């Protein structure tokens, strides 16, 4: 059974290889092949899952060692897989949601002549993501980590003819690379500390070393997580990443890849548990991002960007939870999964809307769409309810638990974090309601697209609708299922679990959560439900304007890194040409000049030659005598 693990990755990888190298002859059938192989992976995942359930809780982890990757004196990197409950959760999420989105893309990308390559990239992503979660050592994880980065780069920039897309792709890759510095350094630290970087030994002997080392490792891992999961300060790429086709946003930039950071932290639980300082930083980053994303989400008129902000914020929740330690890990993962469902659903819904509205993304130009796309409306609505944590739906369970755990952190931190999470919940409710209202309610604010043909919204084709429905089901039922099926017990052997005791009763927390949610919804309703939505965005408060510009962090990056970097490189090019090269050329010129001057002595007059000889002789004599004298 263990040997099936490799197949999980192999199937989509094969798909990627075939589709990308296959050439035009696969244009007709390529997308089916891609979808099929993703599904195969899902099926194998289910089989393994069944097998895993059949075993006792503590020996559910499966291992498969393929071959030694990098054998060097004192340095051993294996291509080996480890499939435990945590990985399994991800495998199912990735391959499941992945498959659905493959199906969705069949319809969504129908009119794109490069659809085959799109599916190739999707398969590549699925393979890489599975490698990331199945690796049994950090270096192999790094492999998958970069692999998903590549896939994301390719897919964000899929419409390369759009300069904005190409730029966004480049930005995403670069920001992620900054994060990768963290991951590489973390691995190096592990190597110098433990002499290995395989999960087993490293995590087992985490206690053997100093807390300082562990803190360093933890912070480096966090840096990596920030890059991949778009956490402050490396969050800037996610908004631009919405340049990619919507299915990509749904799969990669909502459901799976961006949650890799959470996986990394939870996976490294033992390290963080032993490094409280690092944990604190993690929670802070999570909290900040949580608010940051939420605020940004409130101001965006671009539906996808609004959702992107929300993604950022939700992942903030997860990171925060992961930072809480044993009391939070499980709920971080739980929220991750439920979020995977409803956020993917929301994105697909958004895609469906755009599909019907000539790819218009500005919500101010939507309005009243519920009559025209009922299914989309319903699925999107369910996703909406889930994310704002409407009691009974998946989001409710997972988010509520996180808020509870945040309070349970104890001390002032506990209170602060709890407050932040509550506030976040309120804002979430606010901006999601805003999205909902602006899109599906109110009067039509439609406008002709660039070519002047008016939008005539319509429900999307089956291939797109079915995945939305399924995801909606997931986002409705997911939470409850987990709650009842004992998700905590399922993950506990891997992540460990300690029940947090909040200073206030769990019931109170729940009540508060619901209350703030209602407030948020109410505010949004007053602002967008009662009055008509202006087609041209009002100037808005300072905060609003800042939020529209992603709270100015992009301007900051541009000013500091882009402009500064450009000047730096320019000046260095100059230095290279003028100074480094100049010295050499200068020397050459100098010798040349000397030569020119010396050759003047050769003036063609015998007598001057004679003079030089005479003088030379004199010098010779003088020198000889001098030598004897001294």
């Amino acid at each position, binding site marked *: 059974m263990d040997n099936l693990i490799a197949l999980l990755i192999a199937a989509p990888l094969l798909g990627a290889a075939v589709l990308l190298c296959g050439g035009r002859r696969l244009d007709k059938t390529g997308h089916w092949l891609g979808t099929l192989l993703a599904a195969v992976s899902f099926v194998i995942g289910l089989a393994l899952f069944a097998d895993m359930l059949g075993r006792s809780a503590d020996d559910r982890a499966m291992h498969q060692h393929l071959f030694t990757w990098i054998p060097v004196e004192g340095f051993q990197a294996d291509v080996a897989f480890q499939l435990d409950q945590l990985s399994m959760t991800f495998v199912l999420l990735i391959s499941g949601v992945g498959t659905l989105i493959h199906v969705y893309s069949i319809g969504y990308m129908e009119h794109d002549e490069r659809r085959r390559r799109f599916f190739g990239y999707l398969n590549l992503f699925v393979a890489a993501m599975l490698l990331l979660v199945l690796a049994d050592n950090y270096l192999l994880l790094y492999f998958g980590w970069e692999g998903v980065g590549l896939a994301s780069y390719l897919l964000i920039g899929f419409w390369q003819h759009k300069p904005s897309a190409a730029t966004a792709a480049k930005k995403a890759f670069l920001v992620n690379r900054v994060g990768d510095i963290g991951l590489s350094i973390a691995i190096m630290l592990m190597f110098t500390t433990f002499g290995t970087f395989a999960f087993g030994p490293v995590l087992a002997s985490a206690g053997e070393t100093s807390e300082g080392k562990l803190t360093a490792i933890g912070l480096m891992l966090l840096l990596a997580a920030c890059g991949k999961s778009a956490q402050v300060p490396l969050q800037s790429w996610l908004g631009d990443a919405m340049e990619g086709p919507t299915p990509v946003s749904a799969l990669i930039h909502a459901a799976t890849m961006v949650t890799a950071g959470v996986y990394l932290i939870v996976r490294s639980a033992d390290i963080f548990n032993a490094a409280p300082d690092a944990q604190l930083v993690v929670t802070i980053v999570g909290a900040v991002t949580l608010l940051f994303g939420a605020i940004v989400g409130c101001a965006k008129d671009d539906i996808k960007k609004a959702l992107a902000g929300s993604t950022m914020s939700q992942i903030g929740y997860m990171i925060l939870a992961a930072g809480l330690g044993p009391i939070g890990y499980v709920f971080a993962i739980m929220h991750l999964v439920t979020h995977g469902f409803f956020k993917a659903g929301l994105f697909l819904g958004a895609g469906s809307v755009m599909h019907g509205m000539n790819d218009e993304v500005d919500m101010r130009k939507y309005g009243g769409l519920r009559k025209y796309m009922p299914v989309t409306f319903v699925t999107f609505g369910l996703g909406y309810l889930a994310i704002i944590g409407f009691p009974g739906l998946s989001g409710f369970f997972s988010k509520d638990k996180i808020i509870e755990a945040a309070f349970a952190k104890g001390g002032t931190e506990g209170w602060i974090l709890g407050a932040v999470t509550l506030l976040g919940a309120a804002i979430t409710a606010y901006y999601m309601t805003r999205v909902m209202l602006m899109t599906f309610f109110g009067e039509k604010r439609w406008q002709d697209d660039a070519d002047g043909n008016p939008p005539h919204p319509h429900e999307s084709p089956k291939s797109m609708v079915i995945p939305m429905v399924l995801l909606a089901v997931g986002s409705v039922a997911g939470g409850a299922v987990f709650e009842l099926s004992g998700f905590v017990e399922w993950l506990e052997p891997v992540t460990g679990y300690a029940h947090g005791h909040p200073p206030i009763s769990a019931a109170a927390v729940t009540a508060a959560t619901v209350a703030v949610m209602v407030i948020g919804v109410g505010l949004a309703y007053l602002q967008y439900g009662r009055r008509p939505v202006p087609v041209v965005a009002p100037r808005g408060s300072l905060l609003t304007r800042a939020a529209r510009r992603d709270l100015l962090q992009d301007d900051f990056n541009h000013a500091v890194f882009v402009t500064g970097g450009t000047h730096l490189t320019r000046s260095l090019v100059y230095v290279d040409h003028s100074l480094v090269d100049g010295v050499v050329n200068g020397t050459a010129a100098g010798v040349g000049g000397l030569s020119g001057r010396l*050759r003047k002595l050769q*003036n063609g007059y*015998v*007598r001057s030659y004679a*003079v030089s000889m*005479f003088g030379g002789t004199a010098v010779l004599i003088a020198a000889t005598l001098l030598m004897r004298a001294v």
Partner: protein
Amino acid sequence: MNPVNYLYLAALLFTIGAVGVLIRRNAIVVFMCVELMLNACNLAFVTFSRMHGNLDGQIIAFFTMVVAAAEVVVGLAIIVSVFRSRHSASVDDASLMKL
């Protein structure tokens, strides 16, 4: 008198010849100055021969004269041919090749 004085004389003549080579333009005269230098050498040889009391120096002097004669032959041949082609015996005119 002290034969060493002849050495001083020889040195003096040699120097005069050398300086002559440096300052005179006419090739013939320059050449004469060289001859003067050679003869200064002869004087030195003879003087030393006298001082050492062996004949080598005097014999060398004869050789020197022969060599000088040979130089005259070759030298005049060249100088004359140059003079005929340039109508000038000035060594400064012969400066086609330089730098």
